[in-house]
């Protein structure tokens, strides 16, 4: 079953064509890896799918409905985009992890946060850490947990492991794996050779969004 489908998607920036007539589908429960040269439009594709930007023409479908016709807020809670360089808010980790609860008007579930922090090897005291004192890897972990506190249906990961050391990468992979096992469809963008080698479904984005499908597995 297809969960996300792009149909003849164009994306223009002023006069520049970033994506030209791009079409492809993502199957429910899939783990898709997008690769391609810098500037090919990979981040743009993920942002389009997350409805953070809209195509200049063409349509993106979610379970068969045009995403422009869905409630953008509800949609983004199901199709979650994680930024290439995440920005944390406020002063401490605590200012970030409760945010998903606040926007849903829900009580913060500390047990849930605890168990998520455990997956990434962080003690509960981690919540009180100052943002400025976090390493790049720690920031990325906070940002990821922030995105999956409420499990999304689709998780769009934009080079979330770029710049992390081996250990941090491993922890992030573990977290993503656990999310995938729970049924979330994953679309990741990466330049990392080791990630590309183990990837099952790879979609290569060439310039302006020409695609080239490869299957390793």
């Amino acid at each position, binding site marked *: 079953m297809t969960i996300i489908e792009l149909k003849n998607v164009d994306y223009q920036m002023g006069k520049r064509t970033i994506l030209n007539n791009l079409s492809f589908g993502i199957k429910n429960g899939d783990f898709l890896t997008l690769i391609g040269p810098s500037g090919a439009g990979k981040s743009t594709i993920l942002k389009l799918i*997350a*409805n*953070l*930007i*809209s195509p200049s023409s063409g349509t993106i479908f979610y379970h068969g409905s045009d995403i*422009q016709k869905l409630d*953008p*807020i*509800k949609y*983004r*809670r199901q199709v*979650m*985009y*994680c*930024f290439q*360089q*995440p*920005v944390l*808010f406020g002063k401490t980790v605590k200012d970030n992890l409760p*945010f*998903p609860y*606040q*926007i849903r008007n829900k009580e913060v579930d500390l047990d849930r946060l605890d168990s998520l922090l455990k997956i990434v090897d962080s003690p509960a005291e981690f919540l009180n850490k100052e943002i400025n004192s976090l390493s790049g890897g720690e920031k990325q972990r906070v*940002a990821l947990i*922030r*995105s999956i506190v409420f499990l999304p249906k689709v998780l769009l990961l934009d080079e979330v492991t770029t710049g992390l050391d081996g250990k941090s990468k491993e922890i992030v992979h573990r977290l993503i794996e656990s999310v995938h096992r729970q049924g979330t469809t994953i679309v990741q963008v990466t330049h990392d050779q080791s990630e590309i080698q183990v990837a099952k479904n790879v979609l290569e984005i060439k310039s302006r969004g020409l695609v080239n499908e490869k299957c390793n597995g």
Partner: protein
Amino acid sequence: MKNVTVSNLSLVLAFALVLVSIAISAKEKLGLTKDILISVIRAIMELVIIGFVLKFIFHIDTLWLTAFSTLIIIFNASWNANERNPDSHKKLWSSIIAEAVGTYVTLSLLIVSGVIKPIPMQVIPITGMIAGNEMVTIGLCYKALNESFHDLRQQVLEKLALGSDIKMASMPIIRRSIKTAMQPTIDSAKTVGLVNLPGMMSGLIFAGVNPIYAIKYQIIITFMLLSATGLGAVISGYLAYKQYFNEQMQLRD
């Protein structure tokens, strides 16, 4: 009121003061000579016209004409506040609502509490004072919104991606902008009487009113401006931030 008449000759001599600023501009090569001249000429013409219009309105003294004048003042202030908004998707009505609510609420309180009488001679200058101060506040609020949406763009995007509505995503920006906008009014309230003798009070003392009475008025004016600018900042902030998003709740470029 003998003390407050200005002879036409004094007026002409006072023009020498303008020459001082022109001389500074010329000497320092500021290139402001033309601007200064134009603004002086504009000010003279506008004030002369206003003088005659006010004389006419005070003379007719009907409620309808007074109410109409306040509308004109509010519209004019809204227009100018809107001009100060750097956002290309700005909407004039957000300024009009902010100005109208801030001004009329404050004005009503003043009239109901008997501070001023509903006569044009009191209502019109007070309306001008309220609307003018609000205009500055609203303009500051717009500028702060624009700057904050620029500085905190990534944070807003991040919140939208997490499924936040546009209000939650903009909350720190809205708060910061309202605060920035109200700061000058609060600051000047702090220094009233010590550093600056505000216009209203100076005017009353000038006209020979007992300084104790003048002070009472000034206290009221200070309260009035806090209320009006507070309302103006809050309303304009909460209306204008929405224009930074499109109908898909995406942050515009």
